[in-house]
């Protein structure tokens, strides 16, 4: 049985790095040179379709990790991706105001497609030029209170594990019977 964890977020938020940390295979990436002039100044390669990683749990269970493209023109992929998805991780670059603002947009988009445990992770905490805390709060104020907001380094395996586990734990604890017990 294949389940999925979806990692999304704006351009240059660290999605590919994120899945690299826990995938048992070298992620299959579809990075291509950035064509948009404005974006070229930020990075030279970007994900054009999706990155794919895999985690084998046992003979029966496999988890596929998908990093979806940040660009809006790939929105058509999302409904297909969400089948058997367990959680969504929305990444935002903590040093980039637009990237943080986009988080709410991604959240709304996915929520409208399927209700999944969602965790927001602000990446690049190792960099010094992060957006001020008040502004982050302001940009993310539209998120519901039950959506955790973590600050991580997407190249740090423990940070990545913690992010995914937070989302899966939300699902585990949402079981009604479990709550009663």
């Amino acid at each position, binding site marked *: 049985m294949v389940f999925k964890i979806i990692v999304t977020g704006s351009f240059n938020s660290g999605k590919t790095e994120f899945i690299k940390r826990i995938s048992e295979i070298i992620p299959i990436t579809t990075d291509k040179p950035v064509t948009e002039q404005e974006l070229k100044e930020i990075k030279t390669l970007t994900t054009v379709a999706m990155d794919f990683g895999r985690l084998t749990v046992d003979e029966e269970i496999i988890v596929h990790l998908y990093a979806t493209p940040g660009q809006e023109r790939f929105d058509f992929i999302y409904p297909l991706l969400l089948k058997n998805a367990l959680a969504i991780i929305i990444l935002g670059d903590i040093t980039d105001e637009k990237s943080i603002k986009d988080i709410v947009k991604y959240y709304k988009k996915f929520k409208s497609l399927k209700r999944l445990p969602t965790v927001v992770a602000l990446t690049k905490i190792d960099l010094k030029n992060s957006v001020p805390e008040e502004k982050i709060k302001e940009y993310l104020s539209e998120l519901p209170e039950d959506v955790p907001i973590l600050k991580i380094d997407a190249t740090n395996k423990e940070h990545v594990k913690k992010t995914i586990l937070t989302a899966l734990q939300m699902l585990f604890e*949402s079981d009604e019977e479990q709550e009663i017990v």
Partner: protein
Amino acid sequence: MEDKKALIVCKESLLSEIVAYTLKKLSCSVDMVDNPKDAVSKAEKENYTIIVIGNNNGTIVKHKLAEIIYNKSLGRPNVVIFKEQGEIIPKAHYLKILDKPDFYKTFIEILQKESPAIRQIYSPEESSLSNFIKIPNFKKTDVASFFKHLKGNVKFHIRTDEHEILGFTMGADIFILKSTLNNIYDILTLKNTEIATEPLSLNEFLSLTLDTKTFKINFRDFIVNCINNINNKDELLSMLPDKKSMVTLKAPVYIVKQIDLINDNINIEKLHSNPNTTIEELIKEDDNLEKTKAVVCMYMLNMIDIEKPIESKKYDVKIKKSFLKKIIDKIRGL
């Protein structure tokens, strides 16, 4: 009635003679045998219109013998079985079940006083089942649940206000010693049942008086026949747990495929490769009664594992809790 032929398969000579006399009076020519081998041999060569089966010298149960004779017969005979009190005979389209005539017993009893020799012709079986379960600790138990969990080598006594069934399992077979049901395969439809059980030792099994009238069948076939006999979908569904429960095929595919009811109605390969299927999805595929029977059959025979999925109103996720726990543990251990 000219040219009709009848075959009587019975070891009780007096009864055979009575039946033969009746049939001859109805212009049938009559053959008589006292064992299944001769009966089958004759049925293969002669075109019998009617075959009467009573107690005979074979070990095969009457309804099974009827099925064999019918299938091997030159023609398509009407098979009549003389049913003893308490004997269980499943229905079949070619079968007519009659209570074994016993009017002559009265004659015997009267004549016994005058002529003790008659005892040798008729010696009624006396078997007391009153002490079958020595310490009958009856508990209110759902009969479907009881059979789902029934193990080998167990004696059981099932009772309701109207019915009583005594039987036991030995290895892979189930034996029914007494039943007040018209059709034993109606047993899963019994309501408000109280059941007492006791282990059956091999010594006790060997000391039991079993003969051709003892109903014996492979337990798996018994359950399949019982389920096949239920044509009320709601009744079938009531035997299953929550319809949202997820199904995982537990038994090997080749074993499951041996049961026609399942093989004909469920895509076993698909179920095997998709352990995240719910009961609802299995049944709803084309929503027919046979498919429901097949799912109940798999459930009753413990061929599938049933697990409740995460019941979340918050998220649209379908996963077994055990699966999710495994994923969490895996990621923790990375």
